[in-house]
């Protein structure tokens, strides 16, 4: 009996040597017949699906419509721990046909030959797309002169940001909407110490902002920004850290901190909850966190008298309302890259999909949903949302190429139309960080971490501002900041931003 067991197990072990997945050799033949007759399936790896995405393909009308109009069956693959899991899959040979990517990762994938070079398709297959995004900067999708990402129309959350203040508190304390940094200081001081909500408790805080932009509005008023930002001034590439008025900006922020009028959780939590609950009175935040109908309802529920006004940018003794927040116009995250191993049929399908999403019909579908159900058009061609509009929220997952932001916001968030328009008009400091590949031996993460912690130390008084120049010297000697800026200048010249 014992011998039988031994013999059988040795046989089993030996036979298992011959078991191996032969699926790969069988697949190509089968695949070809399907592709030449039926719909083409594209796997698109994404970071997340929007809430309410239908479990069943039958209920997914966006999928059905795209399939009907382009013959492309869109198969979304949600990947958690995105870049880790994606790298594993690509290394394992399971690269999805399309996947979301950002500029730094795209450059790595391009160097490894894992994504397709799209330069030769720019003039023909992608020409509709380029027209649709209207001549916007596509350098974010370019690496080494070649196009690697499918350009998309993108929006930086900084263009949603404005300064907001509790109008009812201003009225109660007899103050006006601030225009300069000094005004903000006075208002924030009054909000903290003069009990604006009239409940007899000293529980209100004057100033807050959404991390990492907390103190930016103040710094921006001095034509600088609190972090490593590569900017162009007077035809030269320089950094906000080296700006002439940086010390004044830091001193001003420190003044706010010393007066204890700043939200202590500013760097760790979003101020949205505190704004809604009535704890903070002045906050730099995106309109989408405060003025959407659902949030305004929450504000009213907590305090029916609450009223929020918006303003900005701020003027200082150095400049008259320079800007509000740095934005990187060349940065884009979540644009699509194409797998280098994609078959010609699937590539043709990709271009069909791209063309459809940029067409009038396609973009209305992925922005708003079905005509007649979620949105409607009246006799004059004026479009508006219907009562069932919110059922179509999930279609945002299909906005792979971005969207025409103005029409979208105008239709979807009529209640915040003023804020949207105001935020859009705001001048911004233009930065170019995402275009720059750092030189060998320069570690961007360490550098930025040091910069961030030291700036906080300056603002919170852990390090005297008089040591700022010494700090710049440390960046050069310890981190190679000068080499980084030299590389940046060269690359910016290559991109054509400076002569």
């Amino acid at each position, binding site marked *: *009996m*014992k011998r039988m067991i031994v013999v059988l197990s040795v046989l089993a072990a030996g036979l298992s040597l011959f*078991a*191996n*997945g032969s*699926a790969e050799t069988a697949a190509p033949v089968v695949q070809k017949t399907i592709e030449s007759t039926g719909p083409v399936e594209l796997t698109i790896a994404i*970071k*997340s699906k*929007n*809430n309410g995405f239908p*479990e069943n393909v039958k209920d997914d009308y966006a999928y059905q419509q795209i399939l009907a109009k382009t013959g492309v069956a869109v198969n979304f*693959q*949600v*990947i*958690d*721990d995105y870049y*880790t*899991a994606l*790298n*594993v*899959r690509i*290394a*394992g*040979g*399971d690269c999805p046909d399309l996947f979301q990517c950002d500029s730094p990762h795209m450059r790595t994938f391009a160097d490894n030959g894992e994504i397709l070079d799209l330069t030769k398709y720019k003039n023909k297959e992608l020409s509709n797309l380029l027209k649709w995004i209207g001549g916007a900067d596509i350098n974010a999708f370019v690496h080494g002169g070649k196009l690697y990402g499918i350009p998309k129309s993108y929006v930086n*959350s900084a263009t*949603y940001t404005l300064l907001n203040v509790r109008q009812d508190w201003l009225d109660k304390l007899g103050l006006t909407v601030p225009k300069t940094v000094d005004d903000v200081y006075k208002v924030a001081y009054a909000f903290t110490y003069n009990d604006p909500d009239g409940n007899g408790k000293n*529980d209100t805080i004057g100033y807050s902002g959404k991390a990492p932009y907390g103190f930016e509005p103040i710094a921006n008023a001095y034509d600088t920004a609190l972090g490593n930002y590569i900017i162009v001034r007077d035809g030269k590439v320089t950094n906000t850290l080296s700006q002439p008025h940086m010390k004044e900006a830091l001193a001003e922020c420190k003044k706010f901190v010393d007066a204890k009028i700043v939200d202590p959780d500013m760097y760790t939590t*979003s101020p949205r*909850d*505190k704004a*809604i*609950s009535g*704890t903070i009175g002045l906050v730099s935040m*995106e309109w*989408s*966190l405060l003025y*959407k109908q*659902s949030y305004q309802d*929450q504000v009213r*529920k*907590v305090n029916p008298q609450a009223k929020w006004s918006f303003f900005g940018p701020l003027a200082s003794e150095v400049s008259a309302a320079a800007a509000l927040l740095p934005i990187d116009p060349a940065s884009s995250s979540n644009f699509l890259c194409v797998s280098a191993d994609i078959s010609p049929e699937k590539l043709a399908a990709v271009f069909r999909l791209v063309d459809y999403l940029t067409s009038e019909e396609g973009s209305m579908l992925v922005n708003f949903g079905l005509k007649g159900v979620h949105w409607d058009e009246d006799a004059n061609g004026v479009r508006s949302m219907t009562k069932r509009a919110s059922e179509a*929220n999930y279609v*945002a997952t299909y906005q792979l190429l971005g969207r025409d932001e103005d029409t979208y*916001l105008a239709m*979807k*968030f009529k209640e915040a139309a003023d804020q949207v328009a105001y935020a859009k008009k705001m001048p911004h400091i233009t930065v170019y960080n995402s275009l720059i590949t750092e030189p060998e031996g320069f570690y961007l993460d360490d550098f930025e971490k040091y910069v961030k912690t030291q700036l906080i130390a300056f603002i919170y008084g852990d390090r005297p501002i008089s040591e700022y120049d010494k700090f710049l010297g440390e960046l050069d000697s310890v981190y190679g900041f000068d080499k980084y800026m030299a590389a940046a200048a060269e690359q910016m010249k290559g991109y054509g931003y400076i002569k």
Partner: protein
Amino acid sequence: MVKSKDDTVFEIVVLLVILSVGLLCLVPILYVVSVSVTPIEEKMRAGGFLLIPRKVTFDAYKSVLSGKSFFPALWISVKLTIIGTALNLVATLLFAYPLSRKNLPGRNVIMKFVVFTMVFSAGMIPTYLVVKQVNLLNSFWSMIIPELISVYNLIIMKSFFEGLPEELFESARLDGAPEMTVLFRIVLPLSLPIIMTISLYYAVEHWNTYLQAVLYVSKNALQPLQVVLRRLLRSATSADMNADEIIPTETLQMAMVVLATLPIVVIYPFIQKYFVKGTLAGAVKG
């Protein structure tokens, strides 16, 4: 025994320390539970941190339990835990017992191989390639088979078996019992504490499955509870970028957290006595 004053003082100090550590562990749990039953406006009005809820609502629980993603994920996690733990136990048992017999040929060599894998691992990508080669990708078994035997648990079991008196086995063999009968009729009944402990370790590991699901499984229907939970919590922080997302409130998130940890919390008291006995079982004694 007469208690001296020093003894009483000592006992009081120990009691205080234990109470404060216990409180330290309890407060976050209390926070999670109370936030999960407080409507979000109440919570914000109370300043954001409350321990005893003033107004109670079960809306969040209703919404999660009726949601489409919770129950399938829960079912997957339960299946994983039960089937996975059972298979883990069988495999570990069948590996540990022979290794504990001193007369196994090649025992030392096998042990060296086994311990080697505890220290060195091939890494994520080679493991992925192996899982792909055996066609396990995107299947339920990809979350069970690659981690079927945990070397740590294996060694604990082996040490336990080595501690059992050899005379029992000899007398059984003298009576003509084959090795399998010795294993099932004699060793197993004696090893109940260690089996409960090891199965608890494995069960908690399966309940917490996250990385394997993320790496090997792309089908939504097969994602375990922890992945679904993380997606929900993450959508709350990243959705700010997208103007249209209505973010799940903290009440909803906390309700999900409570529901995800409830099964383990409920089962634990029942196996606690085995667990306490079993943790010492693998230790080297005397």
